């Protein structure tokens, strides 16, 4: 094959992906940045350049800082809890036992369901008046908290639903990591009479860590976009549960402020990129640490 032909084939094979990337990722991103410097609205003709006014608004807006704080708390708590519970669940599932396949299948059901549908179902379950949970608590003679209306509870209620949905994902990834550890390492540790804690700390955890880190990164970026559950349970404009995504929805689709919404989105993007960079560097470090010397 001539060099020219080979080059053509390479280009031909890469072109569709490149085209899709440009059309669906690069162009919207660039356009979003352009919009963030204008006063563009969802409806109405024309928009004009407003310089950095939208960004000034973003950084001075208490709604934005509140939503950012809430989202960060959500990412931290959801990611942490899901990671801890998922890993614990995976350790329990690592051993062979009767009915393991069934347990695993049932455990995976929540993450296979649509978050929007689950949000609606949980809205019914947690309803303070006729929700199933409070009916059961009432029958048991226990207090019936207002899961989705009590200001001190609603954020945590949504967080728990998210944990319920995504812990199986963490468990699945952890299980894959645990299964990939060669049994010989454990056998060697057994010969050396290493304690269970030492085995966990020195073998299991370091070898699974890169995969856990990756899973945590995926969950963190996903939790950063938290939208469906909040929309379905408390709506986009609740002071106690508004996340960055629901704030964006409120600004762009309800208020129609596309320019301002684009500025919000750009700042979120920078946060996501920063977070992703930290995680990938961490993963690289872990990988580097595992290279045999």
């Amino acid at each position: 094959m001539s060099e020219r032909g080979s080059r053509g084939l390479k280009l031909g094979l890469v072109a569709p992906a490149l085209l899709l990337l440009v059309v669906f990722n690069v162009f919207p991103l660039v356009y979003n940045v352009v919009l963030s410097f204008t006063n563009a609205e969802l409806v109405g003709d024309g928009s004009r350049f407003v310089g950095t006014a939208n960004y000034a608004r973003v950084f001075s807006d208490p709604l934005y800082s509140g939503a950012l704080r809430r989202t960060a708390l959500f990412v931290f708590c959801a990611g942490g809890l899901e990671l801890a519970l998922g890993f614990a669940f995976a350790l329990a599932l690592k051993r062979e036992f009767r009915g393991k396949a069934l347990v695993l299948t049932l455990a995976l059901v929540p993450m296979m369901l649509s978050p929007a549908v689950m949000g609606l179902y949980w809205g019914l379950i947690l309803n303070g008046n006729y929700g199933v949970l409070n009916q059961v608590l009432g029958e048991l003679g226990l207090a019936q908290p207002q899961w989705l209306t009590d200001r001190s509870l609603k954020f945590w209620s949504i967080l728990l639903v998210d944990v319920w949905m995504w812990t199986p994902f963490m468990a699945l990834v952890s299980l894959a990591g645990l299964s990939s550890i060669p049994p010989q390492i454990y056998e060697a540790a057994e010969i050396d009479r290493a304690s269970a804690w030492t085995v966990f700390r020195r073998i299991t955890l370091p070898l699974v860590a890169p995969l856990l880190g990756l899973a945590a990164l995926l969950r963190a970026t996903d939790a950063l976009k938290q939208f469906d559950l909040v929309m379905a349970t408390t709506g986009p404009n609740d002071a106690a549960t508004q996340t960055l995504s629901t704030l964006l929805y409120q600004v762009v689709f309800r208020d129609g402020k596309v320019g301002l919404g684009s500025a919000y989105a750009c700042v979120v993007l920078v946060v996501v990129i920063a977070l992703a960079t930290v995680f990938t560097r961490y993963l690289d470090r872990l990988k580097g640490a595992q290279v045999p010397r």
Partner: protein
Amino acid sequence: MKNAVRSLALLFTLLALAACGKSDPASPTSGTGASGASAKQRIVVWWFQWDPATGLQELGREFEKETGIEVVVEQIPLGSYQEKVFLEFGASRTRFDVVIGDSQWIGRGATKGLYVELTDWLPTVVDLATIHPRAAKYLCEYPDGSNRWYAAPCETDAVGLAYRKDWFADPAEQQAFQAKYNRPLAVPTTWEEFADVAAFFQRPEAKRYGCALPSDRSYDGLTMGVQNFLWAFGGRWHAEGSNKVVGELDTPGSVAAIEFYKKLVKLGPNGAERLDYGQVLEQFTNGSTAMICNYFAFFPGLAAKFGDKVGFAVVPGHNGKRVASLGGQGLSISTRIPKEQQELAKKFIAWFLQRKVQEQWITKPAGFTANADILKSEAFRKASPYNAAFADSVETMQDFWNVPVFNELLAVTQRYVGMAVDGEMETAQALKELAVEKERILKEAGLL
């Protein structure tokens, strides 16, 4: 190798051709459908999902019989109605020809060039003096007092009171109420009486509750629920004749109104701090609640289910002042449709506004006309068990902001009033911050 490259090139060419294929410009749901003179003419109307929309569809069939022009009333779920409508306006052609938009949208529709201005045309098809002044002011005109019309009145609506007539008539309840409050158990005419009756019927252990009020935070429920109190207690959203908010909203009257509302929310079922219009109705239809406040247009279902066990009344007042939250909609023509479609839409609106059609409109469930004469007529008052109370409410109707930035004003209102109701912030402080925030929004929009 050359063959492989050629094959790839051919594949891309085919994909590009498929992608560039000319799409059918005619929307499947709007306008004349497939182009051509022989195609059936059609007007697409968007409204949210409720009884009046079904009634309008029935009237549309009458229009079709008379003119041969089909009218399709598409009912969009209330929760997503606003977003869907304004996203449509972002397109070069809307899928609807006529939108029955919330009264609050009129400023945005008018100033953003979304609604066709009807100022010159409307008087040629209807005597404007026959339209109830409050319907004209809140549903059709922008800016206030400008006499510029962007909608024709369709549905006039207000918040009213529905109560369990059978519970009120129960001799044992009457006796117990008399003994406790030293007055007969009667339909409340003041909010203080309302609170007493609600407290009297509040029996959570028996799964019986005093009242349910709109309090939802996702769109406008809480604001529409609260403003019946706000105005009655001497509060207001802004100064009369101006958009000044600071010093107008953050007043003792407004604080007292919200504090009173907070007290009433406790006299409802669990979770009563967050009931949308549907859930308020549900509290009544599930037989657990003595009184609800909700828009009259939601009441046909109650009348059908409860018959003579349900009664309807105007909302109570305070110190002789009674104001009902307005909730109607006008018929607006989209500017994002061809001229011919706009003419068809005008034809339908002109037909709808005729007195004989308005007399038919009032026979439909919650067909609340804006025709002042018909509203006063015995025929209207007797057309349903709730019509008389509605007719009495019309004179006290008042609306939230209808300026182009109403949505931002609504969002901050829902947020701050919500924090006050939930106890996250002192009511006076919440109103103070709300007033400042509203003025910021209005100033940015050049409205202050």
